[in-house]
């Protein structure tokens, strides 16, 4: 394919569920980064499915560390390479939303504040999918998870999703972007930009999860497109804090189209759908997508 690295850096045979969005994100990101890359994985789905000991799906040097310290280890890798004069190697961290927005937040904040030359990619499936769909601070409002179950007393998660990209912009990170696996060219262009940026870069990738969200595995990409077309997920980049939207959907669909396609939202009544719609409308206005 024109302009796309034909080598596979994530081998098949890995144990991801059929239709896994995390592996789409990792595979595309690695194609954008190329061979001269070292990857660090926080604990999470991607780590578990790609490295069932004694096998590994990774074709590049890769290190697994705990939830808490992936960014700290990547900082160490950067320092070690610097000492060896190998400063052109990409160092990329893959953390899930739990490993990024909850548990790995402190070391990520530290690495970003110190200006380490690393690329941090959060693959966001909006809950702890590997351990059984527990809510994270990235779980959206209204979603039913095993620790925010919908029922008589609850409508599911009662808080809005943590705005991680904004937190990274607030750190003064020179390149911050959001992406979605349904828009591969946009995703790969952003990963390339992140690699070319001296200093830290952060990319937050939304990736639908058939198991945790409750939809048929062939709809993973469709759900990503719906998230973008309803403005539930906005695709933008912030270069030195200057925000620019990179994908403008031709028409804005009602959030209900996205919500009703997933089991985790199917209990929501009109009142809650309206609350989500209002939140999304405010967001699209803020980013200049609507009047």
């Amino acid at each position, binding site marked *: *394919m024109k302009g796309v690295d034909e080598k596979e850096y994530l*081998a*098949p*045979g890995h144990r991801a569920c059929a239709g896994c969005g995390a*592996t789409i994100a990792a595979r595309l990101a690695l194609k954008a980064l190329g061979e001269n890359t070292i990857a660090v994985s926080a604990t999470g789905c991607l780590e578990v499915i*790609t490295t069932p000991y004694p*096998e590994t799906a990774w074709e590049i040097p890769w290190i697994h560390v705990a939830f808490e310290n992936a960014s700290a280890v990547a900082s160490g890798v950067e320092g070690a390479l610097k000492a060896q004069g190998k400063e052109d190697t990409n160092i990329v961290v893959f953390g899930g939303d739990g490993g990024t927005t909850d548990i790995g937040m402190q070391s990520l904040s530290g690495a970003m504040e110190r200006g380490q030359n690393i690329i941090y990619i959060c693959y966001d499936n909006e809950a702890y999918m590997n351990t059984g769909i527990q809510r994270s601070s990235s779980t959206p409002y209204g979603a039913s998870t095993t620790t925010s179950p919908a029922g008589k007393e609850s409508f599911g998660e009662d808080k809005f999703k943590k705005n991680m990209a904004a937190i990274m912009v607030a750190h003064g990170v020179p390149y911050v972007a959001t992406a979605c696996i349904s828009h591969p060219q946009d995703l790969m262009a952003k990963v390339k930009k992140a690699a070319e940026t001296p200093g830290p870069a952060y990319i937050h990738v939304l990736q639908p999860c058939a198991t945790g969200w409750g939809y048929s595995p062939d709809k*993973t990409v469709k759900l990503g497109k719906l998230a973008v077309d309803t403005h539930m997920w906005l695709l933008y980049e912030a270069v030195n804090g200057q925000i620019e939207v990179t994908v403008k959907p031709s028409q804005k669909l009602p959030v209900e189209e996205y919500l009703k396609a997933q089991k985790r939202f199917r209990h929501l009544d009109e009142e809650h759908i309206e609350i989500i719609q209002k939140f999304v409308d405010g967001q699209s206005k803020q980013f200049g997508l609507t009047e």
Partner: protein
Amino acid sequence: MVKNMKSIGAAVRDPGSTRRNKTGSWRTFKPVADKEKCIGCGICYLYCPDGCITLEYDPDYDYCKGCGICAEECPVKAITMERE
């Protein structure tokens, strides 16, 4: 110095070794491509979570888990899912 270094943790020295595990056995439906219809856009190749669509746009049945994303996303409906 490196020679005397003791290995800590679990090192795997065989990159890409998950290839030993043929996930094609998970499949209940398989994608079948109609090459007459294919326009070579590469969408199926880019979206495949298992990276098992070749550059000639043929599915690799050794690893294809049959998720059906390729058939769902093909813009000219050149891929159909058939029961194994």
